[in-house]
């Protein structure tokens, strides 16, 4: 009988946790961000060519992405290759550079499977003109696609910033797409670090 009793208690506790406890809060930074380097001083003019996020085993080339006729940013054609919004700010220039990649395909995980594991302070690296630019994650957010925070994600910035986007939340089978987007916000950090 005691096995049954303990099992019931454990189940009750887990149900309570699921219902009443919020998901772990998406992380915030704990320390100051140093002033970004002067992007023009590096005289980078070429496109970004490679993305590396060591913590989540991302090490892949970047393909250019453009806006579709609908105005939406197109997704990369390959599930294992991330892309960057090529008509927008290139990573390292002042402004919001945008990188997007798949979280999964119809049957398997994809390049940004573990993007949700990034936390403030994690390192994202983008190669451009042979130089590795370093970005530090500032925060992350998950947003319903119907209420996408356009101004926050695509709005102008006073320094070189990065937004890394993939899908998240629950999967809507009727629409054959995820309900949310996960956005990681990062700021370029001094290459002295």
């Amino acid at each position, binding site marked *: 009988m005691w096995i049954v009793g303990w099992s019931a208690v454990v*189940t009750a506790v887990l149900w309570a946790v699921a219902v009443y406890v919020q998901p772990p809060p998406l992380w915030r930074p704990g320390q100051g961000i140093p002033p970004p380097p002067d992007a023009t001083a590096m005289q980078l003019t070429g496109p970004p060519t490679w993305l590396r996020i060591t913590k989540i085993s991302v090490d892949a080339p970047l393909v250019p992405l453009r806006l579709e006729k609908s*105005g939406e940013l197109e997704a990369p054609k390959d599930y294992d290759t991330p892309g960057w919004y090529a008509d927008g700010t290139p990573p390292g220039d002042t*402004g919001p550079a945008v990188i*997007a990649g798949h979280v999964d395909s*119809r049957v398997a995980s994809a390049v940004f499977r573990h993007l949700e594991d990034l936390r403030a302070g994690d390192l994202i690296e983008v190669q451009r003109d042979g130089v590795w630019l370093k970005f530090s994650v500032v*925060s992350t957010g998950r947003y319903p696609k119907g209420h996408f*925070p356009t101004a926050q994600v695509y709005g102008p910035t006073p320094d070189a910033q990065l937004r890394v986007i993939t899908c998240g939340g629950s*999967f809507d089978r009727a629409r054959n797409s995820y309900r949310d987007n996960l956005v990681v*916000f990062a700021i370029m950090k001094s290459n002295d670090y």
Partner: protein
Amino acid sequence: MPMRRWLAGLTVVGLTTPLCVLGAASPVHAQDVGYVRLAHLSPDTPEVDVYLNSQSSGFKEQVFPGVGYGVMSKYLALPVGGYTVAMRLSGAAPTTPAVLTTQVSVSAGGAYTVAGVGRYAGLGLKVLKDDLTLPAENKTKVRIVQASVKAPILGVSVANGPSIAENVAFATTTDYQLVDPGNWRLMIRPAGGSGAKEVSTNLGAGSVYSLLILDSKPSGLKTELRVDALRQGGVPDGGVQTGGGGLENLKLAAMGLIGSVVLLLLAVGVILRVRRARSKVL
């Protein structure tokens, strides 16, 4: 006695189900840093040393030496919180009392210009709130920072085009105005009619600028178009379709497997009970 097996089976199912219901969309602030820049906008004040300190511990004091009239620093990204800005005449020892001090409360995503404004006799430290948010309709936002005492009232307009601001007084800053993006010649027109100045500008769509107007030596005006915030390209509409649901399928498959195992255990339990009951009867 069969009840025990049923309860155990239900418990297992109960244990696996909560793992699937966690998670609701949780938007957070884009960044928990704000931006502060410093400016010297007083035409007759000599160079100053500017000291930036945090009101919380662990922050290393930052000093900007020899800041002269017309200098506006780059934005510094700072953690949210309270800061103190102090000004001393350049070269004065840090132990001497500051000429001016002010507090800045930095909020997440906020941007501030802390400026010494006015004439030396009435010098003040003003905290300007800079609005870096995306301009409506992907237009451009421009404001005028009027630091010319020789042209104490002036107007700014697009050459042969709309006015941006009129009757802008020395030591004031206008609100941001929405203008069409493009390569524009701007006219700066001091009240009184003389000394007008033309300046070529490239105003990017969706970007934010402050136009500094300063006295030039020996005479005339000098302008500097400062980028407050920048972006490039069209604004994408909404998010990105970057998922095919494969992870959901994998999760469902795993749950199906667990469920099958549970049913199997229940079935085995029932069969064992039935056999035991039968053997007792015999």
